């Protein structure tokens, strides 16, 4: 235990039990993905009796803890939640033999038993708490894009036929009123995917590119929304909000580049004003970039 650490720091105790119980059951440290999900479920399950004050937000792969604000004893050895192992460093947290500690331990034990071998079920359970329906629909899309195709090795046309309505209904649930600044980008992505899926030669890699990049851009906005985070320090929220402008520009460039690629293979791209305007914007942006870079290095 670090010097000065409080007795019965419930967030530390719950984190410690999640790591320990998994390690006891499986003989290895849990992944970041597992840790995030079980932490969230523990927090939700205990909420009426013990408030763990878990600092967390909704982001790319569901709900995740805010690493910077978690107890210092918890370590991650990789940036990506599905690749990192989470482990506890130094001594266990200091805890009394109280009812609350017993309740935390029992809750973690139950969740470990249920989900240690089935992180996917935990992900689904966590997503049932997602603040926006669009997140749940996007999870279905991800499962479809990365699951069905890999499992059954379907041809592109059949995959397009079954996935078109899933995309369409997912985009219908996009919470425009909560994220008005993403309205145009959503329309561009939706239109582009529709062109691919209704064509004779649907390119699923391009569909994945469009949907994932739009999702990543959306998540920079999502985590700052009041309904999508709790117990996050103001400084971190300020930092996240400060990053949005640059990320929006970056993802606008990425998606516009994808549109340029789309226009090379699909005839009807320029018949939609919104797509045509976006490609023109990117061409102008490329010219400006060339001027900025050349001026900087030549003068």
């Amino acid at each position, binding site marked *: 235990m670090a010097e000065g650490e409080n007795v019965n720091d419930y967030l530390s105790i719950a984190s410690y039990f999640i790591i320990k119980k998994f390690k006891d059951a499986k003989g290895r440290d849990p992944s970041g993905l597992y840790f995030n999900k079980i932490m969230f479920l523990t927090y939700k399950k205990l909420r009426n009796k013990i408030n763990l004050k878990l600092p967390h937000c909704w982001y790319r792969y569901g709900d995740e803890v805010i*690493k*910077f604000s978690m107890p*210092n004893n918890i370590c*991650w*050895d*990789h*940036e*990506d939640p599905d*690749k990192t192992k989470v482990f506890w460093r130094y001594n266990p947290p200091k805890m009394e033999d109280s009812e609350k500690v017993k309740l935390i331990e029992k809750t973690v034990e139950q969740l470990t038993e249920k989900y240690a071998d089935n992180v996917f079920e935990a992900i689904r359970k966590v997503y049932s708490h997602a603040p926006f329906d669009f997140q749940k629909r996007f999870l279905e899309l991800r499962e479809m894009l990365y699951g069905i195709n890999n499992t059954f090795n379907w041809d592109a046309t059949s995959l397009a036929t079954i996935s078109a309505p899933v995309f369409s209904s997912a985009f219908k649930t996009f919470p425009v009123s909560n994220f008005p600044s993403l309205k145009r980008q959503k329309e561009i992505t939706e239109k582009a995917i529709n062109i691919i899926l209704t064509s004779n030669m649907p390119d699923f890699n391009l569909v994945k590119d469009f949907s*994932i*990049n739009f999702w*990543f851009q959306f998540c920079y906005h999502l985590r700052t929304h009041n309904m999508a985070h709790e117990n996050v320090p103001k400084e971190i929220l300020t*930092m996240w909000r400060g*990053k949005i402008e*640059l990320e929006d*520009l*970056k993802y606008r*460039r*990425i998606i516009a*580049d994808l549109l340029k690629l789309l226009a090379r293979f699909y005839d009807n791209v320029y018949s939609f004003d919104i797509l045509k305007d976006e490609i023109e914007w990117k061409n102008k942006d*490329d010219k*400006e*970039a060339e001027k*900025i*870079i050349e*001026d*900087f*290095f030549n003068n």
Partner: protein
Amino acid sequence: MNEPLVLDTNALNSKDLMYWLRSYRGKVILPIIAYCEFCYYQIVLKRKTINQIDALLRTSNIEIRNMSKSDVSCVIDICQDIKEPEFKKNWRDYMIGAFAHLPPHRLITENVDDFDFLGNRVIDPVSLLEKYDNKGKKRKRRRKA
């Protein structure tokens, strides 16, 4: 999503890298210490303006990253066996390297040897562009086949 890249100050001298980063699908991080050093060279020694610098970074999708408490913890982890004279001489490298401490971050620098504490996750700008160019070629070949 590609690996996040962390730029050392001297990586910003590569015009090719600045062009290439515009289409890179991953985070590109400039540690605040490297930003400060770059500003000194460009503004004080080369009479550039802060607006020119910021326009360049924005054009290449480069994010300036402040140092957090966890980055400081990384510096301390890296420097466990470092003697004081060496720290005093190279503290800047340790601070920049700390931003790439966690895999899969990769540090881009002209001085690869100065960051041997990051193992094989350090690369110079030319080798980085070659690496990705080769990947692209492989992908294209596979598609054609």
